């Protein structure tokens, strides 16, 4: 059985480096013949995943991104070596509670990733976080 094709990126934690990941995602999506809509959703989810890995993980080292190309789906892993996080502490943001209140306006990343991708899974501990997200070629995430 032949090995599934994959693309691996190692991103330094530098400003706007998430755009390197989205450019790669666009090329991979084009290769897989994914629709423009799905390509946009993957790019947006990837931007948010990278920002989480760059900023919130407080990682000092690089962030690794693996694209695993399969016939019916694209699997993307975003791996950081940061401090990890507890999913149960992540609040679902609501614009109503952010408007006209002192609540910080940020904190949308995980919700966006979950809304835009077909499957999302986090494995996290004090040594880092691996986010695995899947976009299926045919099924929609609606």
């Amino acid at each position: 059985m032949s090995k599934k094709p994959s693309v691996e990126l190692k991103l330094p934690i530098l400003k706007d480096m998430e755009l390197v990941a989205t450019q790669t995602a666009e090329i991979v999506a084009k290769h897989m013949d994914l629709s423009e809509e799905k390509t946009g959703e993957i790019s947006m989810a990837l931007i948010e995943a990278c920002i989480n890995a760059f900023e919130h993980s407080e990682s000092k080292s690089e962030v690794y991104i693996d694209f695993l190309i399969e016939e019916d789906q694209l699997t993307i892993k975003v791996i950081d070596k940061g401090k990890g996080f507890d999913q149960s502490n992540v609040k679902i943001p609501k614009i109503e509670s952010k408007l006209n209140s002192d609540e910080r306006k940020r904190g949308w990343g995980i919700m966006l990733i979950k809304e835009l991708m077909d499957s999302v899974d986090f494995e996290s501990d004090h040594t880092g976080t691996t986010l695995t997200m899947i976009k299926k070629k045919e099924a929609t995430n609606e």
Partner: protein
Amino acid sequence: MNKVTNVELIGEVVVITTEGYLNKDLGDEIQNSAQEHISNGKNKVLINLERSNIVNSIGASILIELIEQLQEKDGSLAFCGLAPIIEKTFKIMGLTKYCESFATQDEAVAAM
């Protein structure tokens, strides 16, 4: 390059046109551009994102602050020329409940 490329007053509407990635830097630039006009009494702001086809949630969060400010002045914020993924992102975040979105700048200015 991501930046505000033009700020102009069309009738009573402050039109802010951008280019490139709507991240924190561009969000702050939009906010600063709007601020000058809001402090001069203007309360209708249109952001033309026709040449910005990518966004992150930090940039979008800054727009929530702008909505808040304009609400305090009985004003409104609207967008035009949104790329489908930006429109979807704004919808998920709930921004579209508080801001109208138009296909073109002319349409938006006429409606505001």
